[in-house]
């Protein structure tokens, strides 16, 4: 036993930029997080639509025309995938964030998730019904 202090902890560095790469759990998380980019972009599309709407029928027609393009289609498709992934991941996390205790027992997570899916379907059908 020497008298010198021999402890010298070794620190494993992790990359600040690609720590998630190749780890399925973290990749799923990042996929969920980047849905926000689609949502962000899409809200600006909606704002653009509002502006056109405020500027009168011609402006709005121009907006629709611009939308009706390969780029517009591609954009909407990409956003659709993003927002659906967002919905699924969001619903699957709610029981953890907002557990429900009924009497002694907690409502099983799957039931809460199921209820959300149900609500999602209803909302979507109503909008479709009103909108189409």
């Amino acid at each position, binding site marked *: 036993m020497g008298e010198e202090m021999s402890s010298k902890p070794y620190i494993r560095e992790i*990359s*600040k*930029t*690609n720590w*998630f790469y190749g780890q399925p759990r973290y990749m799923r998380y*990042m996929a969920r*997080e*980047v849905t*926000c*980019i689609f*949502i*962000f972009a*899409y*809200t*600006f*599309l*909606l*704002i653009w*639509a*509002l*502006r056109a*709407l*405020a500027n009168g*029928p011609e402006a*709005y*027609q121009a907006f*629709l025309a611009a*939308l*009706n*393009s390969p780029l*517009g*289609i591609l*954009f*909407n*498709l990409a*956003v*659709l995938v993003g*927002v*659906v992934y*967002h*919905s699924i991941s*969001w*619903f699957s996390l709610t029981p953890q964030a907002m557990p429900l205790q009924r009497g002694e027992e907690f409502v099983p997570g799957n039931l809460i998730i199921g209820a*959300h899916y149900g*609500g*999602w379907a209803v*909302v*979507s059908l109503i*909008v*479709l019904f*009103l*909108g*189409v």
Partner: protein
Amino acid sequence: MAKSNKPIVWGLFAAGGTITAFLLPVVVLLTLFAALGMTPDLFTYEYLHAFAANWLGKLVIFGVIFLSLWHAAHRLRITMHDFGLRQDLWIATTVYVLAALGTIMTFFYLLRI
């Protein structure tokens, strides 16, 4: 310990997350139809204008856009961090300013309808 400024936006983030999860997929589906040239009723000028002219309609539109914006902005702030961009103050300011701009624009356009 340093107080965090995150709870200010977090409430909007959470509410926005929920609203977008329920609503956006179907709305995006509708604009996708529009992009494909099969503009659904909702996105025809007359229908949408009538909807936005009503104060309740305005409120709904404003709510959806406002919450989506702040939801996305806040999450973007975190995501930038996750990608290794550590200038949190700058990033936060940028995304929140963007969201604020969007909010103001939405407000004024709605007023003009």
